[in-house]
């Protein structure tokens, strides 16, 4: 409620001159609140779904794996579609994002109504993924359009910190509901639906609609940035050489990441960590990300986003090297901190880097292309690392991954544009 109290006041505040705002724009806070609430809602379901399907419904692990993996590939396509839809007709970002949030919220009712029918559950999960895919790019486009270009790093940092807070709270809420009801999974779905619906309401009430969200505060700055890129208006995002360099660098670096699950597995093996404590590893990294997202964004605003983005990947490289050192608790903590730095310095920062490069009316679809390219490259990277592990064993595979990441870093150093808003 703390965030909501702030958002309630923000839109009424007098517009501040662009560039001087020491505060994060109200639209960004509102979008952060929407993401926080929505992540509570969706992580609740993620946390209980395997239990529900396998214990509650008696589905076999194989069937679960099938249901779970079914729509992962489709999300990439849907994300591109979401970006396109949002850009068409001059800024329907809020409508498209809102439809995505609403679809995901309604999918919880689908889970409830499906009962034990596998087909119905598959449809509900598909609707959830569809909603998630559709909303991501328009939402990030709205953030990048709401804050002045020189404060984008911090704006994305604030959003990602709020988003991560929701993801951390979700499983706790689910646990509380299961505990209170002696494992009534349907109650988790109902509460998740109510929370999801609340998120949609926050979006509708506190995120302004229109071609340029938050025009009152950042319109001038955006317009100024836009004037330099009028030549690229309506052009396909990938046709722009500067943007193409950003996508290439992100994809190269993405292909050199090995996937978090492998990192955690290596940590667990090194420490001989009791399996019951295993969930603490991703939790620790997420908590670090939550704390570092805003400071990293501020640094990115001061130095330009290129340096933090590259330094973030250097932190990941340092994490790989730490994993090759003799294991122990200090090394493990260092790896988690480095991983948190990596996420804080790269995730929102990449959006802040790419946003100003893209024209206003092509921003959502451009960000969608960038996110999809990065996600696919990471998928390839994780698969490659898995294969290398099988062939050569974990240590040689890690050495190869470190070499690959170092090479990708050097390449990205040369490829990434020096000045983002050229």
């Amino acid at each position, binding site marked *: 409620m703390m965030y909501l109290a702030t958002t309630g006041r923000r839109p009424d505040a007098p517009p501040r001159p662009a560039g001087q705002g020491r505060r994060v724009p109200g639209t960004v806070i509102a979008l952060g609140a929407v993401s926080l609430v929505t992540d509570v809602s969706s992580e609740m379901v993620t946390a*209980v779904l*395997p239990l529900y399907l*396998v214990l509650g419904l008696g589905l076999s692990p194989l069937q679960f794996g*099938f249901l779970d993996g079914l729509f992962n590939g489709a999300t990439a396509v849907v994300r591109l579609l979401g970006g396109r839809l949002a850009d068409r007709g001059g800024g329907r970002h809020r409508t498209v994002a809102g439809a995505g949030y609403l679809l995901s919220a309604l999918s919880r009712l689908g889970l409830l109504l499906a009962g034990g029918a596998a087909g119905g559950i598959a449809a509900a999960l598909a609707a959830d993924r569809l909603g998630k895919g559709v909303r991501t790019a328009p939402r990030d486009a709205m953030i990048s359009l709401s804050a002045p270009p020189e404060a984008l790093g911090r704006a994305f940092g604030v959003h990602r910190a709020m988003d991560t807070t929701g993801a951390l709270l979700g499983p706790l809420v689910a646990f509380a509901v299961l505990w209170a*009801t002696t494992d*009534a999974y349907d109650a988790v779905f109902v509460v998740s639906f*109510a*929370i999801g619906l609340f998120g949609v309401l926050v979006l509708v009430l506190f995120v302004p609609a229109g071609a340029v969200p938050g025009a009152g505060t950042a319109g001038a700055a955006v317009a100024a940035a836009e004037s330099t890129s009028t030549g690229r208006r309506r052009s396909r995002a990938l046709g722009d050489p500067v943007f193409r360099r950003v996508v290439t660098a992100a994809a190269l670096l993405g292909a050199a990441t090995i996937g978090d699950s492998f990192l955690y597995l290596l940590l667990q093996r090194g420490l001989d960590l009791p399996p019951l404590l295993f969930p603490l590893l991703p939790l620790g990294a997420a908590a670090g990300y939550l704390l570092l997202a805003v400071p990293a964004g501020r640094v990115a605003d001061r130095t330009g986003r290129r340096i933090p983005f590259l330094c973030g990947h250097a932190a990941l490289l340092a994490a790989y090297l730490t994993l090759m050192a003799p294991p122990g608790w200090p090394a493990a903590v260092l790896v988690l901190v480095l991983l948190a730095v990596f996420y804080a310095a790269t995730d929102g920062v990449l959006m802040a880097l790419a946003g100003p490069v893209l024209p206003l009316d092509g921003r959502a679809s451009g960000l969608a292309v960038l996110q999809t390219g990065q996600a696919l490259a990471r998928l390839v990277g994780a698969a490659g690392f898995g294969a290398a592990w099988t062939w050569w064993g974990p240590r040689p595979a890690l050495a190869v991954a470190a070499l690959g990441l170092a090479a990708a870093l050097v390449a990205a150093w040369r490829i990434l544009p020096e000045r983002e808003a050229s």
Partner: protein
Amino acid sequence: MKARPVVLIAAALVLLGGSLGYVLHARQRNGGQRLVAAESSFTLDEPGLYYRDTASGRVARSPGVPDGPSCVRFHAGGDRALCLRALPGTPARTQAVVYDRRFTELQTVTVPGIPNRARVSASGQLLSWTTFAVGDSYAAGTFSTRTSILDLRTGYLVKSVESIPLTVDGARHHAADVNYWGVNFASDDNRFYATVSTGGRTHLVEGDLRAWSARTLRENVECPSLSPDGTRIAFKKKVSADPAAPWRLHVLELAGLREHPLAESRSVDDQAAWLDGETLGYALPAQDGKGTDVWSVPADGSGTPHLLVPGGSSPVTVPAASK
């Protein structure tokens, strides 16, 4: 403009009230104890078919009322019974409870994951269980299995069999994706059979506890179940790419490694149990879509499946006490 916070707070109250109401309703509905201990009259002394009753979630002896402990998976051998329970809440955790003949709790081990398979050796000295662990959204999206072995003679617990040196097709195998499930012990209380999966393939694996090594014997064998005379292995074989019906029960002769399909043509996702030297029992999803029924079929491939216990799972034959 001023109305927005009011609208939001009103909506929050309505949604909160609705959620709270539903939670309280669910609490009322699910009321009562979830985990129940066995009645004092319920023991392993009486020979016969034991199973888990779906409706009550408790172990029962056929025919009879379910007076046993609450379990999700159940197995018994010698003087010991093994019960897997799901602990409430997330992330999923499983409690493996070891009982004596009178269902007094001897030992409890808590492991992460959802209960999947449970086996006790014929002597009652070795126990094994498999849980099915799901990566949360930060970690991997895929599932993996975790199999433990408990030796009651020494009290030694192998938390995860994955650490065993594995030889696949004659070559030492290292991989991150190695998963074991469905352990089954031989009568010497040293050798065991299980499924190992790696690189997208499943293998029948023979393990040696004392030597602490394992080697694969054959591909496409899941959930092995050794016959009481130790000559045959019943298993589920993947015969179709259709995720709705991938498996068929087969029996493998260990001498000569020849296999034949059983008369059960439906897809069985269970570790079959030898009810006697010639008959296998297994669970199949019930017609009404809720829970499972226990069926039996001859092990030699002849005959037809026979419905043994409606609304049951985890069948196990408890022989007369050999004292």
